[in-house]
């Protein structure tokens, strides 16, 4: 089966000579459709670099990124930009919503940029907002929304249309834990509908929403957890007395 997203021996170096930094070293990562993977590591471990390379925003020094079975390095700049627009969604810590657009306009924007008519794009945007529980807030501007609502708009924008991969960088960073949990529930729900998700974070609570947690240290994958066993394992009866 073709993975939705695959990194094959991806390395990334910045600078050269004595100041050279190896941000990523031969990282292999495979994310299937429907799977949410967390990449966990401290600051400077390379996790944000991993995300920008996975999203084709940056090129690896060596190795390949494969999106939906296509090797990104073999694609033209235009094809790559097109793939990025219609297949990949991004969620950032600071939401990155455009202040001059309403919630639904923000969500519909990537579809319009991708050539969809305004009316159809708005309809898809409205639908995506509905799934995030924000149908009522569609016509509000970002500064009329709470932090939690803004991040849900950002997720709606990341999964709107035919997105196959969602990449999130500390998506609950500025939110309290209950609002952060709501964001992670929505990301998981999006993945269950068939999107492949990658969340990079230093926060274990956030990572624990993933099906699999990959640990990154000094640009290397050092370890990963498997999919969690059923909750039954927490419910083993105590010793009878």
């Amino acid at each position: 089966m073709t993975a939705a997203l695959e990194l094959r021996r991806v390395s990334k170096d910045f600078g050269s000579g004595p100041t050279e930094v190896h941000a990523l070293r031969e990282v292999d990562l495979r994310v299937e459709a429907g799977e949410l993977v967390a990449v966990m590591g401290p600051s400077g471990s390379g996790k944000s670099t991993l995300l920008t390379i996975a999203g084709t925003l940056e090129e690896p020094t060596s190795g390949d990124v494969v999106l939906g079975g296509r090797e990104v390095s073999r694609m033209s700049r235009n094809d790559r930009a097109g793939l990025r627009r219609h297949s990949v969604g991004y969620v950032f810590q600071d939401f990155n919503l455009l202040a001059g657009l309403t919630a639904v306009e923000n969500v519909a924007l990537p579809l319009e940029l991708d050539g969809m008519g305004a009316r159809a794009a708005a309809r898809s945007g409205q639908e995506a907002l509905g799934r995030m529980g924000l149908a009522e807030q569609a016509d509000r501007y970002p500064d009329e929304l709470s932090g939690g609502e803004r991040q849900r708009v950002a997720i709606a924008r990341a999964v709107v249309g035919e997105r196959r991969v969602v990449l999130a960088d500390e998506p609950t960073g500025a939110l309290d834990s209950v609002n952060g949990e709501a964001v992670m529930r929505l990301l998981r729900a999006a993945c269950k509908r068939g999107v492949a998700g990658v969340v990079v974070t230093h926060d274990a609570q956030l990572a624990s929403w993933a099906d699999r947690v990959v640990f990154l240290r000094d640009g290397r994958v050092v370890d990963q957890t498997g999919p969690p066993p059923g909750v039954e394992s927490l419910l083993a009866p105590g010793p009878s007395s």
Partner: protein
Amino acid sequence: MTFPQDTEYATWYEREWVVGVSVRHALLALLSEGPKYGLQLRQEFEARTGEVWPLNIGQVYTTLQRLERDGLVESDDTEMDGPQKGFRITSAGRAELDEWLRTPPEDTVPPRDELVIKVLVALGLPGVDVPELLQVHRHRLVELMQRYTRLKEDALEDVGVALVVDAEIFRLDAMIRWLDSADARVRRLPAATAVNAASVASGPRRRLGARR
């Protein structure tokens, strides 16, 4: 209740709550809503803790007998013990419950101390890769946290379960954050000689010992 593969991270709940004193107060709380049978008490206790803490029926009856002996509950006037025997809370029981709710939890030695000791010992041992050891523990704790998060995800509407599970998750989170900060500190050590590492290890242990 046990965590078959996670005895190292066994919680204070297991030691203090389920097998210990607080089952008394949980039963008093359930009885404060009205008279109940023993079996019913067990079912309600488990339902409200998200079945995270199964009780056996023997535990329930032993606890009820002690509560009755102490005048905190009364039972029906039957000689028979069994699932059909009903219990009621007394006014002394209500006072005890209210007192308990307002008493701060006992400041027991947290379980992560065992982890702290292990890492301190490892620091002083030649040939131990401490960051690797920290990762072994981080892996287990994150995995455990994933299981609790799944439990919470499945129980969207149940505030009781969410509260119980959150308590576990925050406890695990504290341990993982400690591992992360230990990791950062260890990496910052100058290419440590065994002697350096040993002095790092023995210093805090002496202080810990003196405090107790």
